[in-house]
């Protein structure tokens, strides 16, 4: 018992710091992914070929290659072309740019799902493009996008563990270090898995709450949330 207590006092601050970093990098990376993804999705939906072609290339590259390969390229390959970034920046931007490719497709799906007649009606009421997006498209787009986005936020959360490989001192990195020093493997990794699972459940719960709010006017009898 005393040995376990000393483990907590020894590694507690380190684990707490890892926890803070995991949550921080996930939140900031997701915010970047959603924002950039929305802009890219809008470009894919409304832009001409001059705009959609480069955006399409971006999406296919970042979606088609593994996150780990992108991180290696930026972290170890970057310095050879004069871009030296610290691990945190690489991790944050890597996660954001990677996630944005998937979010772009989610938002493109959302834009394509709006019936054309609604937009014609909105235009004949002389709503501006901004107003059409804000009041006609966005509320409906989000109904389609929220379940898919919840999926993706969970995937990005679990992918933050990959950042430990490029030495971002997030939770998985700290726990791995701890296991190597203490030769205890089952408990730390079980606790680590439980932590990720608890956080994914929280995201899933928030996703269901968001759906309830967004979808309630659309089809209350089939909202599928608690």
């Amino acid at each position: 018992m005393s040995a376990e207590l000393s483990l907590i006092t020894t590694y507690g601050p380190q684990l707490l710091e890892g926890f803070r970093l995991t949550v921080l990098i996930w939140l900031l990376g997701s915010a970047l992914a959603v924002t950039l993804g929305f802009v890219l999705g809008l470009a894919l939906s409304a832009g001409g070929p001059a705009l959609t072609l480069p955006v399409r290339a971006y999406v296919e590259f970042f979606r088609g290659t593994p996150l780990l390969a992108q991180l290696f390229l930026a972290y170890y390959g970057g310095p050879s072309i004069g871009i030296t970034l610290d691990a945190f920046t690489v991790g944050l931007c890597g996660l954001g740019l990677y996630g944005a490719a998937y979010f772009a497709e989610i938002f493109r799906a959302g834009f394509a799902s709006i019936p054309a007649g609604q937009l014609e009606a909105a235009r004949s009421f002389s709503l501006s493009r901004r107003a059409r997006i804000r009041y006609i498209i966005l509320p409906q787009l989000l109904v389609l996008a929220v379940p898919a986005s919840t999926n993706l936020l969970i995937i990005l959360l679990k992918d933050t563990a990959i950042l430990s490989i490029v030495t971002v001192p997030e939770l998985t990195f700290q726990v791995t270090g701890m296991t190597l020093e203490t030769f205890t493997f089952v408990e730390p990794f079980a606790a680590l898995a439980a932590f990720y699972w608890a956080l994914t459940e929280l995201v899933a719960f928030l996703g269901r709450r968001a759906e309830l709010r967004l979808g309630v006017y659309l089809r209350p009898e089939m909202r599928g949330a608690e």
Partner: protein
Amino acid sequence: MSAFFGTSPLSQSVAILLIGAGTTIAVSLAGNALGLLIAVPVCFMRLSQARAARAMGIAYVSFFRGVPLLVQLLIVYYFLPALGLDLPPFVAAAIGLGVCTAAYQAENLRGGFLIIPKGQNDAARAFGYTGVQTRRYILIPQALRAAAPTLINEMILILKASSLVSVVGVEDLMRVSQNIVARDLRPIRWYMAAAVIYLVINLALALLGRAAERRLSAGYARVTL
């Protein structure tokens, strides 16, 4: 195979790499197909008005989305034989990928169902369509169309995640490139080759996905923002 690729070590390695790529395509296709088959009923459970069905749907999604894929693969491969169900590695891998991706696909698909206006369901029933017919002819085609890009997202994720199936003994693209590197010690060459092959497969998948979207969108006016 050697008749086509020759017998030099290099061409042998290329042949092995391509066979591995074939295995990767096959196992992720099988996993994706199984995943969609499971996703549809899970999605309908989530959308059901019965509280118990909804809870079961949520439980399925929560388990298979919350537990890492690697753990799920190990469970299928090592625990099922303990219950007397002995599976070859390929089948175990396809099942592992399938049950995991089903949780994500059920959610993606559900988004597609949520945006179908309620009146369509009522209209179909008023025309005498049964519940099954309404789903088959009215709801599913529209949900598939709306959710298609997100379904393709997940298929690409599963293709990349299939690099994990080597842990249950499947000789996929990742495993064979590791084997080749172990023999000729040229990691950059072979891992780059593997990465390019993954990228090409994903590009093909994305192109097929958009072709499917266009087909499903026949009869829809193009939305201009």
